[in-house]
């Protein structure tokens, strides 16, 4: 696994990303972040708080689907309460994420784990959009029965696990072989 990631890093170094990372690191904004010790920790704190808002909401919606929480609320109430928080938090995550890339472009862009995380993020967003549409179609039926079909339950567990993988990869960016 380590060897594979190292080979990935070697390949990233041969791409245009190297020039891009160097160009970003010469930008005044990158220099400003780099010269202020607390800039990166503060951006990371905001990033983690946004994950807390998004993941907390993801957990509450999916626990409702699994019938493990919020049973006295309708599916409509639960999704109306938590869905906007997920998408707004995602916006904050993207903005703070861009801030981290600008602050430390080489550490992020020439990092195999960063790209693994990006693929996982796109995956979780696409799966969530599809899942959201499916849940919406079945919402009326669920108001009565409280729980959906097996496939939907697997989807609910899968989305929680995908988010956990995103966070796992996020933390491992700091430990990648670069």
């Amino acid at each position, binding site marked *: 696994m380590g060897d594979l990631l190292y080979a990935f890093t070697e390949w990233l170094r041969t791409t245009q990303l190297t020039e891009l990372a160097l160009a970003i690191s010469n930008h005044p904004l990158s220099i400003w972040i780099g010269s202020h010790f607390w800039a990166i920790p503060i951006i990371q704190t905001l990033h983690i708080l946004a994950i807390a808002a998004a993941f*907390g909401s993801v957990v509450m919606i999916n626990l409702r689907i699994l019938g493990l929480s919020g049973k006295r609320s309708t599916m409509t109430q639960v999704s109306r309460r938590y869905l906007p928080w997920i998408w707004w938090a995602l916006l904050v995550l993207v903005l703070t994420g861009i801030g981290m890339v600008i602050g430390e472009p080489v550490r992020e862009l020439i990092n195999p784990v960063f790209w693994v995380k990006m693929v996982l993020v796109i995956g979780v967003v696409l799966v969530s959009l599809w899942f959201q549409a499916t849940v919406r179609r079945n919402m009326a039926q669920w108001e009565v029965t409280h729980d959906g079909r097996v496939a939907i339950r697997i989807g609910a567990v899968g989305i929680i696990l995908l988010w956990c993988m995103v966070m796992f990869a996020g*933390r491992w960016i700091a430990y990648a072989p670069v």
Partner: protein
Amino acid sequence: MDLASVWQALETSAVGSFVAESAWAFPTIESLHVIAIVTVIGTIAIMDLRLLGLASRDRAVTAMSNDTLPWTWGAFVIAAITGSLLFVSKASGYMANPYFLAKMAMLVCAGLNMAILHLSVWRTVHHWDSNQAVPTAAKVAGALSLFFWILVVFFGRAIGFTLGIYE
């Protein structure tokens, strides 16, 4: 008893040296720690926002508490276990770090805040459970909870940038 030798004993213990020396143990436990803390704060914030009247206003306070609290506590147990494992790997370093001590202080404050809420205004929760205005004391508790937990994250992240500076 000399506390410094206690921290050193933890570091040289089988668990402490394993976490410190293994290539994958620390990052893996740290990842689980982040997932657990994010779950704790995400679910607590849902409750705090209800107390502040900023979200879930159409739902009873006790219903929100029943929906979130078991998951908050479950995640907290995982955060405490993983946090302890990270701690023993560099116990003296953490104890010398002001941000680690500040994080622990914020955890104590968050715990006390929750205890005070439950021993005081929460006793009459059935009078203000739904529809009625939340008493000011409960709103203050909600706001303080958000404040303390935000600082837990900030100090937690600050530790990673300052470990080793204060030894």
